[in-house]
């Protein structure tokens, strides 16, 4: 077991330069889980799984391809006939191994999935409406913006998603979250804003000519600065005559 672990570590470190992410400094928000870290962790476990299976299969394949080359023109293969037991064994043993891996992965998956779909209490709620081609954002206080999603640092943020025209998809690569914006439906996603900084926000469902131009940024602001911005941008209270 330990040997396997160290092997998988080697395989992983070989793969890391290609598959690792540029590090992001993100602070935990109000005890809510950090989805990015959760995603990256599961991803790395998966990479180990995939590299180990891949290397084993590739080595077996290479071995067979090289070992059993034809050496004389009248040579023929001499595969043994399988007994009844062996023929079932070659079905059910691999099937069992695959299923065991599958169930293990499914369990891991739903653990993370539940975190990704359950919005923590006290999340900052914001409305995002997709249109051809941009994102309209409405804050709880009424402040609005287009293609600029300002959020306070270290806070879970829930984005309620809708669309004015066609299907879009609201994608925040740095936070490892996206969800479709479907006309006539209300969908949502949440993420943990983390440390102050800027992140890409972009459309991930084909929505016509300027699909690739449908992007903006998430601006994570220090708490005080954010409060100030919200106040300054809130619509003036309606005057009653």
């Amino acid at each position, binding site marked *: 077991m330990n040997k396997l672990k160290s092997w998988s570590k080697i395989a992983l470190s070989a793969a890391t330069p290609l598959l690792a992410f540029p590090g992001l400094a993100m602070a935990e928000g109000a005890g809510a889980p950090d989805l990015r870290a959760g995603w990256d962790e599961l991803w790395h476990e998966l990479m180990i799984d*995939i590299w180990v299976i*891949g290397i084993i299969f*590739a080595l077996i394949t290479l071995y067979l391809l090289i070992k*059993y080359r034809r050496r004389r023109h009248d040579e023929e293969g001499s595969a043994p006939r399988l007994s009844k037991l062996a023929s079932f064994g070659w079905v059910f043993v691999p099937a069992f191994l695959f299923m065991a891996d599958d169930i293990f992965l499914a369990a891991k998956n739903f653990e993370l999935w539940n975190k*990704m779909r359950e919005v923590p209490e006290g999340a900052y709620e914001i409305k995002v409406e997709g249109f051809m081609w941009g994102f309209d954002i409405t804050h709880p206080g009424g402040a609005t913006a287009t293609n600029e999603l300002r959020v306070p640092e270290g806070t879970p943020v829930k984005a309620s998603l809708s669309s004015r025209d066609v299907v879009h998809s609201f994608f925040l*690569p740095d936070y*490892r*979250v*996206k969800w479709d914006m479907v006309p006539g439906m209300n969908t949502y996603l949440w993420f943990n804003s983390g440390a102050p900084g800027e992140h890409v926000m972009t459309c991930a469902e084909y929505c016509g000519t300027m*699909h690739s131009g449908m992007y903006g940024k998430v601006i994570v602001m220090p708490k005080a600065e954010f409060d100030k911005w919200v106040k300054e941008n809130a619509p003036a209270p309606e005057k009653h005559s």
Partner: protein
Amino acid sequence: MSTQALLEPSDTAEVAAVKQRFSLKEWIFTTDHKRVAVLYMIGAFAAFFVAGLMAMLMRTELASLGPTVTADPSTYNTWLYFHGAAMILGYQIPALTGFFANYYVPLMIGAKDVAFPRVNALSVWLFWMGIILALLTFVIPDPPDIMWTGYPPYSILTGGNTAFYTFTVLLMGFSSIAGGVNFLTTIIYMRAPGVTWGKMNMFIWCTLAAFIIQIIFVPVLGSAVTMLTFDKYLGTSFFNPAAGGSPLIYENLFWFYSHPAVYVIFLPAIGLIYEIIATFARNRIFNYKKIVYYGVMGVVGLGGIVWAHHLYVAGIPNWMILIHVFMTLIISVPVGLLMIGLLGTLYKGSIHYATPMLYAAGFLFLFLIGGLTGIPNAMSSIYIHLTDTYWMPGHFHYVMAISMTTAIIGGTYYVFPKMTGRMYNETLGRIGFILFFVGVNITFMFTMIMGVKGMPRRYYDYQQFPEIEWMQQIATVGSYIIFLGALVVLISWLHGAFYGRKVGRNPWGSRSLEWTHAPSPPPPGNYGDGVKLPDDWNPYGYGK
């Protein structure tokens, strides 16, 4: 040792083929399954070539930030639409269920033709009409720009001519259903005495399975695009949320067909790889019966209940996601069995590396990568980040586009001497393979990595991701290498067809019926008075 010496030294051309005058009319109105196969082949490779040119244009456009080839994103979107639609509907499905099914099914089961030769002619005509309609994309004023998935409401709101897409789908669909009825009947009723269910070639089993899937699922796609056409041109509201419809109905119907469609491509393709490996390893199929029952039929059984893995973030209910995550992971079982069957067939074989076998070996690695990179996609949580990024085109080019193309190109090299009575040039064949194999790995490995970094798919430009430009450039270089490889392949075929060395009926030393019993090329009617097979005959009866 020279290539020829490792094959059958005694195999020489039998009869000088009777010279026939070329008649276009005879080709168009032909009902001979081998000629129908050639018509399919020409159409499918034409679609591959044009869609391949679109890929080169796209890859060139992506090589630098900002406009490169065109400053108009809708031009790029039309290339991408055509690339996707033509590669799947015009190239891979027709090459496998049209070209190879037509050429091999009657020959492998010892029949003189298909059950309904005129229905067969109708199929290939409908296919050609579909190809022509698709090619009109490049001359009509407002070409479709909806991608091959055609999601509403965009496909309804766009100024592009969506009808050219929906009618192409309908023509190809009718062609497929007619083909399905034809081939299922042929396989069930036209097998020569002695070709029992337990002795059918793997390719026949896989084709049977593929057509069962087509007949069940194509009508669903047909209904989806018909509703789309009604919504756009007749003002109905199936998918219009303002009037109580929903775009999600379309998304579900579309993937209800289009996921099984990948098995329609996958099964005959792996069937071809089985044939190639059995012939070139001169070995019996490993665990034949179990592979057929649990592998081939397992894919048919599970293939229809995994479609929602395309829709995890589309807004479908949680219970549906739960089921589809499990089913999608479980489909690794039959697919894994099919792979184990291939590896087992190599065991104690006698493998000769002619060009078809090189492609089969390439398949083993490319499909391994494609299959393994499918695991993250099945997992809904991981999928949330990966979906609709470059990871997806990276993965599905490996698992479908490229793997199945190795089967199609390898399969064409394999059938080449039978079809033409001549041998292609082995050196050109090898050079083509190496260029292809190197190129695809460069291009699509980097495509996947860009996806993990967040680059969304179907992007004309990527101003928000300037840091990945260098990877785009490497992927583009890879695609030029692929293109070069494809040209070498084409040249080797044309050269072989006209100037290749003449060969006899069985240059590969195969035990399968089409090689042992039919001349190269087989005459109309294939086997004259029919074939008589000894009791111990088996298409994989090697090593006795």
